[in-house]
């Protein structure tokens, strides 16, 4: 079991030992990056076909079923089609920026994976400030969106980019604030040590952060803000096809479009991996008697579950309007994450309570506080008086 758990680490060490000494550093780097790219590129392919199938079922149709058995080779066909398509660049476009934009999106997306722990001892680099690195690198995707939208010389592309940047800036605040509660509780920014802090078991049950009142609400807030940060439905306004064609992707075709597509999915994967690491115990098993099973298996099991949740949400929740989007971020999510910080502090300091049933009292108080804030904010922001819609350019 121990060997199976560490099989990838051992394989890497065995391979590095076969390489001559002066090149060992290069082998280490390649053997860390190579599997990472292979695994998540195949995750990307699998997710696209699963998503199209699942969305088809939700919308009462078949989804792709022509290429290969059950249409399972569809990603391959799509990839081939993208590669051999002509790469169109608008005549007025800013050629250099137009070319650089997809790379500016994909490269940071890959970089964010380097700090995620995929299993025991399976982190590419264990940075002391790993969480900060994740958000710092993730923040640069806004710039790629701007570059794509501006360089296309297309008003829909520009509007999509403006929407995208405004949305990303707004939802980055609740995203980071909801992770601060975890950092407060663990006392470290290093992701492996955050997982270690959740690896204990009490009465056979794991001590994941999601099983605390602040962790539960923090996880939900993180997923909502993360979906917006990754431009997922119902927050996919930057590329809302029924409003502004395809947003900043309008003037992209062929391989560059495929890169953008991949960058968006990689962003979603990174957010999912981060959510698992922070709140769902990373690679730890859900019950103690399974603790000897391979750690990487649990990471990818949770990963698949969260991706399935995102697909389900995409199939069921309608898209927001732009002003609703902004209002939701600044008036609802940000105050709730701040309250969540207070609840996390309460949970931390009430850890010394000794009387019988203290755990229930702590749960009740914590959940009551965050729930009260939720109800109060919801009531305060809910108005039935929508102003009449004015169609300024349609009359």
């Amino acid at each position, binding site marked *: 079991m121990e060997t199976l758990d560490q099989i990838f680490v051992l394989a890497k060490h065995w391979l590095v030992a076969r390489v001559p000494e002066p090149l060992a550093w290069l082998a280490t780097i390649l053997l860390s990056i190579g599997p990472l790219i292979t695994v998540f590129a195949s995750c990307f392919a699998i997710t696209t076909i699963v998503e199209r199938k699942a969305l088809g079922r939700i919308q009462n149709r078949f989804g792709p079923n022509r290429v290969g058995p059950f249409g399972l080779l569809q990603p391959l066909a799509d990839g081939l089609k993208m590669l051999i398509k002509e790469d169109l660049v608008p005549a007025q476009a800013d050629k250099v920026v137009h070319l650089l934009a997809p790379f500016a999106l994909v490269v940071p997306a890959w970089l964010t994976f380097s700090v995620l722990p995929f299993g025991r001892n399976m982190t590419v680099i264990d940075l002391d400030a790993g969480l900060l690195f994740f958000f710092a690198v993730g923040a640069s995707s806004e710039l790629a969106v701007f570059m794509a939208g501006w360089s296309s010389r297309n008003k829909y592309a*520009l509007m999509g980019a403006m929407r995208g940047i405004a949305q990303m800036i707004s939802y980055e605040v609740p995203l980071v604030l909801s992770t601060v509660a975890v950092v407060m509780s663990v006392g470290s920014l290093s992701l492996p040590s955050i997982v270690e802090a959740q690896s204990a078991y009490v009465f056979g049950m794991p001590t994941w952060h999601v099983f605390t009142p602040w962790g539960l609400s923090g996880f939900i807030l993180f997923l909502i803000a993360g979906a917006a940060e990754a431009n997922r439905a119902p927050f996919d306004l930057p590329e809302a096809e029924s409003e502004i064609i395809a947003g900043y992707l309008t003037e992209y075709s062929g391989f560059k479009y495929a890169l953008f597509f991949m960058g968006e999915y990689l962003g979603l994967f990174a957010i999912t991996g981060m959510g698992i690491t922070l709140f769902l115990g990373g690679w730890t098993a859900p019950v103690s008697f399974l603790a000897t099973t391979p750690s990487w298996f649990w990471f990818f099991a949770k990963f698949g579950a969260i991706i399935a949740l995102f697909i389900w949400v995409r199939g069921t929740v309608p898209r927001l309007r*732009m002003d609703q989007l902004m209002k939701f971020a600044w008036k609802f999510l940000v105050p709730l994450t701040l309250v969540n910080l207070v609840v996390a502090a309460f949970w931390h300091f009430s850890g010394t309570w000794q009387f019988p049933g203290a755990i229930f009292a702590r749960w009740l108080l914590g959940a009551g506080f965050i729930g009260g804030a939720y109800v109060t904010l919801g009531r305060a922001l809910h108005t039935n008086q929508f102003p009449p819609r004015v169609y300024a350019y349609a009359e």
Partner: protein
Amino acid sequence: MRMLSDIPIAFLMIAAVTLVSAVCAMSLRNLVHCGLCLVLTFVGLAATYLHLSAEFVGFAQVLVYVGAVAILIVFTILLTRNAEVTLSPVSQSSLVGLGIAIAVCGSLVLPLVTSPSLRRLPAQSLAPDAQVQRIGEKLMAQYVIPLEALALVLTAAMIGAVVIAMRDDPERNDPSPSPQNQKDTGSVSNSPAGTALNSSSSTSSSQRP
């Protein structure tokens, strides 16, 4: 003749990229290109901080400058309709500015090159103990008053920026479809980004030829 290993190749590469992009950021004709070159300069500086084993500051630099300041700058460029303007070339009077800058550069670099006491290596060859935990403890103990002051400054700047950039006379400026809605979003989003969004949605249809 020095040994090849004495030449700090990594540093020289980072410095060259940073300086070239800084010069581009200050000299290109298209303002958006200037903004994008500025981003490259910030990333190069962050790399220099990492090279100096200041991890936390390097990441903070990327987060604040690339993620916030650069985005603000390009938003402002778009908002002030500067994206399409190609700027006038350097005029006669600005040669005075160039002269001043060269004089400052000379007076800074000359002492640096000639001073022998600056040709030193780090006092401790190992990286200093700049763990995030120690930075946090310092911030919360020794530097807690500056930290609180900085929090006040940032709050004041945020409110100030919103107040300055907010439209003070909505009836004069543009034929906005729903002024109620516009004002609402502008006050919510707490940054010029929110204001930018409003104006963009109402003006960008006329922005392109």
